[in-house]
């Protein structure tokens, strides 16, 4: 069973624990600037929205790469960048419709979420369960449940 990151923005407080955990695992420093997951603050609306790679099946980035530096990881379902193969052409960053693969000036190669090889640090660090790592086939389960409760006139909180 593959798992996927499930993101529930309404639970997010914008604390950036996830960004620090991500950058620390990937780069060995606490550095939101190097995080693969990003929190966007919509100040006027009072909303915080975490955003990262969804690991598309037919991944644009992977297909676009001319040197096959982005590969499918069968164990986790993630699309991983092979840093030693990447030539830094940035074609993948253009191909990805969501902007979640990015170029790093310091290393000269691109970087993206690789689900921490199946044990994502962001979800472990998140204090509010805004990011959870769940069955990839059922990322909508909680939302369905809430709506089901609502349609039956129940208080979703209590069920």
């Amino acid at each position: 069973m593959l798992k996927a990151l499930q993101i529930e923005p309404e639970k997010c407080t914008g604390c950036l624990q996830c960004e620090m955990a991500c950058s620390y695992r990937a780069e060995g420093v606490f550095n939101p600037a190097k995080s693969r997951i990003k929190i966007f603050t919509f100040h006027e609306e009072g909303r915080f929205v975490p955003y990262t790679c969804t690991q598309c099946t037919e991944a644009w980035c992977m297909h676009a790469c001319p040197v096959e530096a982005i590969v499918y990881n069968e164990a986790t379902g993630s699309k991983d960048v092979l840093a030693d193969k990447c030539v830094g052409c940035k074609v993948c960053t253009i191909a990805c419709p969501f902007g979640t693969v990015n170029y790093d000036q310091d290393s000269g190669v691109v970087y993206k979420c690789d689900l921490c090889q199946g044990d994502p640090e962001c979800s472990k660090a998140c204090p509010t369960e805004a990011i959870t790592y769940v069955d990839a086939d059922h990322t909508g389960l909680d939302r369905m449940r809430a709506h089901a409760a609502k349609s039956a006139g129940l208080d979703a909180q209590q069920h």
Partner: protein
Amino acid sequence: MAWTQKVLRINLTDGSIKQEPLNMEWARDYLGQRGLATKYLTEEIDPKCDPLGPDNKFIMTTGPLTGTMSSTGGRYSVVTKSPLTGCVACSNSGGFLGAEMKAAGWDMIIFEGKSPQPVYLYLENEKAELLPADEIMGTSVWAADEWIHKKHQDPLIRVATIGRAAEKGNLYAGVINDLHRAAGRSGVGTVMASKNLKAVAIRGTRGVGNIKDPARFMQAVSDGKKVLHDNAVTGQGLPKYGTQVLMNVINEVGAMPTRNMREVQFEGASNISGEAMHEPRESDGKPNLVTNAGCFGCTIACGRISTIDQGHFSVENKPEYWDASGGLEYEAAWALGSDTGIDDLDALTYVQFLCNEDGIDPITYGATLAAAMEMYEMGAIDKETTGGIELRFGNAEALCRVTELTCRGEGFGIDMGLGSRRLCEKYGHPELSMTVKGQEFPAYDPRGVQGMGLGYATSNRGACHLRGYTVASEIMGIPEKTDPLTTDGKPELVKAFQDMTAAVDSSGLCVFTTFAWTLEDIAPQIDAACEGDWSPDKLLEVGERIWNLERDFNIAAGMTAKDDTLPKRLLKDAAKTGPATGRVNDLDQMLPKYYEVRGWTADGVPTSETRKRFGLKALSA
């Protein structure tokens, strides 16, 4: 190591910018942030200097845990000599700017002198430039923030800036970062304005590494997060109600300063409480509170993001105030609400927005307004002085109007910018200023919480709850319950809280963690991150050293034991309602003992043995 070991020194007079190594010997004695910057300040300025003159310095400082994954590890402080009190000032702020400064590679930024032209600092990692700020002079915090983001075309810059109040000489203006987080007290923003420095804009992409023992650090961080999560205050109360969780609690124990501290309970408290912020309002069915929000790295997330009812008189036809922004914290709700006798939640939220928009301290402001209202009602201030405003307790329209004037430094707002001590002196009623050393009280009446009275009287930055929050013990039973109405044991309790807090304020962490954490939780995080041995005892020693250093600064600045006192109202007029009925604050029963446990003379001066113990020397007095 956790410190970046780099200090940025900026001479505003001649525009020179230098990098220098952090004094690691001092870091071992003072840890960082509050302690370390106070050490720099005492070494570099004459405590008697004019706080608004070029000889004062303005230091922005992080702690070793700032920018790390330690929960709440995003704090910075502004350390300088206060124009409000004449004491050493240290105002601590959350948000994201502190961590950005650290990620750019800096433990500390020291501003000296005074710029001939208005400038702002643009800091991108190693690159530091002073740029012209003429276009944003005379604009609000919010406008300046927007202008800087547009100008640099970078939405990720973090900005700290002053508003119009500071530029107009308001003596309790703060530095606002990230739109609504504040280094708020003691007029540190006024000092920034006096240097012709409008803003500091930072982009840091280097991150914070350099952790002494990474595996142990990550374990200590996750242990700490679990403690915060499992604790009822930090895991439930603060995320749900923010600091406003206290409004009803403190009112019930009869320690809610009301109408310029004439009373100790406010009949309207529940209308402006954390609970009320969750209630759907009639007009649009939405509650005041939109969401809670965390500062950098914070797993408590006490921050309030609020909206004002669009139909409320304060914002009618003012769509610029219809969006969500930083809402009421307990201290603001108390000072703007119960101390002025106003229980209109929307009006208070509007006024909170204004305080953020133009950078004034809502505690000092609310208390100054309360004093002005009392003087108005007794006839010492008239309508001519107020510009026609009916400055009565309970008048929400007057609150909104006077706040607008104060934030912009116009009309009666200029008088208001003096703070209550100078205002009350000006109008002939110094006894009505509810201050210690010129700084206004926070939200706990010391008749109902005896230890806080001693804490206020001896606080090194004037009346303040954040220098030793014995409310935790006296009301909430943290770490253990003491009787709020007794003075027994309070000197020792106050000292313990003051020393502990000084250490926490020097680490990069938020003092709110101490609702759940003791130094036993904090020390392992510092110890795993930083060179040296950082046991709880070592931290207490550092805290006590800092306390004595601050005291010595204030003594050299001219403070004496006479300044360690409370207004007559709190020492002579007994509480009329609630559990503290009939009580005054019995300061005289605590103060001599406090001096003794501090190792100070009967005149409140550290003895030579005490100084020796901490490696201090008397500052020129």
